[in-house]
């Protein structure tokens, strides 16, 4: 029950906000984000932003994803 998508916050009004990706926008609740800021990337699940993405870590993960061939090799036990 965990389908959640990372989206960028483009509007904030109290506990309501709008987040977007590729021009598609979605209204989101921000009750669970401490001090949300425009431009934050949040993970949205069932209409609620459940966490802010750690940008540095996200970038590191994207880099790591490029090494997927190595990971596939490491899978052999």
């Amino acid at each position, binding site marked *: *029950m*965990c*389908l*959640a998508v990372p989206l960028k916050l483009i509007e904030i009004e109290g506990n309501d906000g709008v987040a977007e990706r590729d021009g598609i926008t979605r209204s989101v*609740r921000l*009750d*669970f*984000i*401490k001090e949300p800021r425009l431009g934050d990337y949040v*993970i949205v*699940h*069932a*209409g*609620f932003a*459940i*966490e802010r*993405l*750690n940008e540095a*870590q*996200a970038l*590191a*993960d994207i880099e*790591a*994803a490029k090494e*997927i061939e190595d*990971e*596939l090799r*490491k*899978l*052999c*036990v």
Partner: protein
Amino acid sequence: MNSESSVYKLMEVCGTHTMAIARAGIRQLLPQNVRLISGPGCPVCVTDQSELDAVLDLSMEKDVIIAGYGDMLRVPGSTRGDSLARRKSLGARVEIVFSPVDAIGIAQREPDKQVVFLGIGFETTAPGTAMAVKLAKERGVENFSVLCLLKRVEPVLRGLAKDPDFDIDGFLCPGHVAVITGADSFGFIPRELGLPAVVSGFEPEDLIRSCSMLLSQIREGRAELENQYKRAVTSEGNLLALKTMEEVLEPSDCRFRGMGTVPLGGFSIKPEYRKFDAKARFGLEYKDVPEPAGCRCGLVIQGKIEPAGCPLFGRVCTPADPVGPCMVSSEGSCAAAYKYSWEE
């Protein structure tokens, strides 16, 4: 862990992991001696059929609108073919929503109807559901209530580990549950069960990396908690979300399909918010109902058999005409297997 065994069994307990793994074909990328098993991670699948029957009956009441996620529409109760989709064709008002807050909106637009939101999910969904109860109370939306069918992951895992047949070598932990409860909430797995645990994200790369981390631990004889999903999961979790859950919900004993009662396996709504508790409002009772004949969802959910190990799989039980929820729920193991796998 049986060190003589040449087969390593990894279990995931998240329906979205089940689907993501099947979709990316991860099982084909793993070595032959590594098996990925789906555990009770699909919140729809583990909902007891007696609770679904109560929902189906409620849907036929005049002036009741059932609001729920799309996943719920085709799940059968204890009678084959009976589902919210069928009841809708018979006149029930059933609305698909993408968020519990949407359901409050429906209630506000239709003040002479009773809107019942089906609160299904694990801890990822619990905070939003709890917040909906709070918002309804704050806004005085009296014709709104929540049927709390929320479940908790930890008690289920503990219950599984107690089973004498339990034979898992490592756990992939649900990444979005961990966003809420914190990576540390899965620390009991290495500490008390002596097994490796990796909190995993949902992209194919995340899953591959997590499996790799688990297998490294197994190879090196370690049993630790690792967090692969650091971009979203902190050690302590989302404190704001946990606070809201604490205000509205309390852990309670809960029936899991095929597993019987799991102590503190679910959530119920606290007395302060009982006014918005649909179970109380409608005086719902859950009658003891047997599994449909031949249905092995209970065993599949616990990871004791693979979907193909159920004699009904693909023959009698198909997505078009499911016997049990594992086949129809969008995250059910059987649905994933039917949809994405095939016999070579």
